[in-house]
């Protein structure tokens, strides 16, 4: 009997271990809507002062690094793309379980979208990051009203068939990117697309919201009041239409009913200094340049009107320092990719952070310069050269030159072929273990 019980225990342990590994590998790991919630749980209890909620609007627009570096505000961007307000309601509820923020900021962009038309399959993932609880069950049930609801509650039926699409990211902690370890939800949008600045000066009156949106907006306000947590409703700046503005006017009316502040930042383009030719990724989302301008403006409001403490220099907030440094680096990577002038790029490349490989085909013989692996290394195409170096846990750089066989540059199996005529440059981010740019 004793032997049988021991056997059963070992079997159960093996079984649970297998299941855990399966869930870890197969589950969806997207930062947006899943990773942001998972990382939120990792935040030290009662350490987050401002929590932002909403859609991609919010997570693209509000930069947690700027708020930290410029104002010492410990904020978190707890958002999910195309998140309807009935999702947001449960996010707010979940956020208040482990934190006592000084302010909740809810983006109202989603009120112009009828979540039922978008289709729950697109935003159900926003519940996947939540820990199992009755609230999570309610959140899923609020999204779905179809027969196969059990599939979405159990989650694995929706992702078990990913076996043919698994990548390295699925097998590694934090998807193999150090960046995600201390990430606070801000997602960099590096698209630049000039947009039209609409005129809505004759914007008068309001129109009805989708009933479900209004219902959950009121629920969110009531929840914040019940939890005695200050709430602010906002609409981030974008290429807004007159029709949208009428709906936001209605939000303003509802907010006044409850005496909750509401700021429609579409009235503040000039104060923010928003440049519609350069600061948006599309009509609805700020890119990292627009986000920086907006966050600086918003940060001032937060500091002036709310008593948000400055935690800069606090040892307990080291995670914010790491997040800020990582974000700065990520934005720097975006700038490297965007910059056309190689001389400017060269200035940006700190050998402590980047490995850069310059291949100059304009000289005779062609020359190669490697920086970021200790002292700079250079050689020309007439030299026998061989360098094999581990540049990350799973990354090996190999540069081999043979005057007869030619030049070869590889990171693992990935081959980078330089341009025959100009200057080619490969930039590798040591921290994130990824190629930032390869230009020919």
């Amino acid at each position, binding site marked *: 009997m004793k032997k049988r019980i021991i056997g059963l225990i070992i*079997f159960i342990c093996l*079984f649970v271990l*297998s299941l855990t590994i*399966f869930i870890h590998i197969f589950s*969806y790991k997207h930062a947006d809507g899943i990773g942001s919630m998972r990382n939120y749980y990792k935040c030290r209890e009662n350490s987050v002062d401002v929590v932002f909620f909403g859609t991609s609007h919010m997570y693209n627009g509000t930069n947690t690094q700027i708020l930290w570096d410029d104002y010492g505000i410990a904020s978190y961007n707890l958002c999910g793309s*195309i998140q309807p307000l009935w999702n947001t309601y449960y996010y707010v509820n979940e956020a208040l379980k482990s934190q006592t923020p000084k302010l909740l900021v809810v983006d109202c962009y989603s009120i112009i979208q009828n979540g039922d038309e978008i289709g729950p399959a697109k935003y159900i993932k926003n519940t996947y990051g939540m820990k199992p609880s009755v609230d999570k069950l309610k959140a899923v049930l609020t999204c779905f009203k179809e027969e*196969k609801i*059990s599939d*979405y509650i159990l989650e694995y039926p929706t992702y078990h068939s990913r076996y043919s699409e698994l990548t390295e990211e699925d097998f590694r902690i934090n998807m193999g990117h150090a960046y995600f370890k201390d990430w606070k939800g801000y997602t960099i949008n590096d698209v630049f697309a000039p947009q039209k600045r609409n005129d809505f000066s004759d914007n008068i009156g309001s129109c009805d919201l989708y009933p479900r949106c209004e219902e959950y907006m009121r629920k969110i306000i009531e929840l914040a009041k019940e939890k005695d947590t200050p709430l602010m409703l906002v609409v981030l700046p974008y290429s807004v239409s007159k029709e949208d503005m009428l709906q936001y006017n209605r939000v303003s009316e509802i907010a006044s009913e409850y005496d909750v502040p509401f700021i429609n930042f579409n009235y503040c383009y000039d104060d923010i200094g928003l440049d519609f030719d350069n600061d948006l990724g599309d009509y609805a989302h700020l890119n990292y340049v627009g986000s920086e301008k907006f966050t600086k403006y918003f940060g001032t409001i937060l500091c002036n009107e709310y008593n948000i403490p400055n935690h800069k220099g606090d040892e307990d907030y080291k995670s914010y320092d790491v997040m800020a440094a990582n974000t700065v680096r990520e934005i720097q990577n975006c700038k490297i990719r965007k910059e056309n002038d190689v001389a400017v790029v060269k200035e940006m490349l700190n050998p402590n952070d980047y490995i850069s490989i310059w291949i100059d085909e304009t000289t005779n013989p062609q020359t190669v310069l490697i920086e970021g692996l200790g002292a700079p290394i250079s050689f020309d195409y007439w030299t026998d050269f061989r360098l094999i170096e581990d540049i990350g846990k799973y990354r090996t750089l190999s540069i081999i030159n043979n005057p007869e066989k030619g030049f070869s540059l590889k990171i693992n199996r990935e081959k980078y072929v330089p341009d025959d005529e100009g200057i080619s440059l490969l930039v590798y981010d040591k921290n994130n273990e990824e190629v930032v740019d390869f230009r020919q």
Partner: protein
Amino acid sequence: MLFNSVNFMIFFPIVLLIYFVIPKKIRYIWLLISSYYFYMSWNPKYAILIAISTVVTYFCALLVESADTRMRKKFLVILSLVINLGILFFFKYAQFAIDTLNMILGIIGVSSINHEFDIILPVGISFYTFQALGYTIDVFRGELKAERNIFKYALFVSFFPQLVAGPIERSKNLMGQIRNIEKINIFNYEKITSGAVLVLWGLFQKMVIADRAAILVDKVYGEYWIYGSIELILATVLFAVQIYCDFASYSTIAIGTARILGFDLMENFNTPYLAVSVKDFWRRWHISLSTWFRDYLYIPLGGSRCAKWRHYLNIMITFLVSGLWHGANWTYIIWGGLHGLYQIFESVFEPLRRRGNARNKIDTNVFSYKLGRMIITFAAVDFAWIFFRAKSVSDAVKIIQTIFTKWNFWVLSDQSLYDLGLNMTEIHILVVALLLMVLTDYIKYSRNVNIDTFVLSQTAWFRWCAIIFIFMFIMIYGIYGPNFDATAFIYFQF
């Protein structure tokens, strides 16, 4: 409530837990309530039908037993048959009968009957009707005493593990166990683990193999006119795999769940595709149904102890009825008829084959000889499956015509076979899963041990690894969950 549904995964543990803790005397009541709940989860209304069938056969059996003359007994049995088969006919065959009648009327130029039956076939009606009728006949024959406790009898008719897709249990076996339910040693470790392995294996057959093969079969049969011989042969072979795994899996899970509850159900499939003749096939395929027909139709008709022509007629009648039992369509009747003809053919040529073997000194014990017969038998059975799968007789005929005329061998090399609903990865998974199934069937065939006995007789590490392997295989490669298009699900803004 399907066995491979989340609902059943919640239902069964609850049933089991309560079954284990309640007093012995009321166990059958609990199982009866659970069985009715299980059945009503499809459509609550149809519980009335099963209740009617139960009450009619219960009282008929009691009256048959107490009747003093054989004539009276016979009358009561016939009454039970008429009522039960009448219900079955109404729900399953009425529309088919009218359509057939209209076809005949059309041929002779008489105006047709305009009546459409808008009835959904009650799940499992063919199974429980036959089980209940088998019981009445057994009582009539004096092979079994009529059950006095109507609730125990109702449990016999509605026992949820085998209610909707068999095995069609013999009253002597299942009724006997239900009568002595208080004596069943529940929480028997060996039975529970053996049952659990069977359930797991059944889920593997259903979710990994049958449902995956079905994707290709449905695609090809759905538009058979756009394909050539090779695709249709592939789809037909895979249909043989699909129907075996689908059907056998249900029986395996039924046997497994019953065993966890402490009941032993009869074996329903025994490596049918390793049969060396069609006669042998029917000893291995849907055993509970074929033996039911043997005992309650074929033998009463006279069986083989009669004139040859009568023997062949008995075979044909049995198989035509068997075909009709499977579905109300001429395709099923032809399928049954083909199996009848195969058996007559085998019977007629059996002496010739034996003489030929003896004259040519062919060693019939060698592997290659058996393999040859297995292949021929499989080909014959699979040919008949075309009628079983096709939507109509004309479709089946066109499919057969295409198979024999459109030889498009180039599809074997131009990768277009990966474009039949299953891509290369899916085909590889199917092949690996099939190899596993062939291995277990071979073990069963050569050693006569089922997968549960085989796995549980191994060392602990092997057992654990095998069980976890099968479980994870189902978790990962099973066909279940919403048919997710990841691109629709995941919204990438940039």
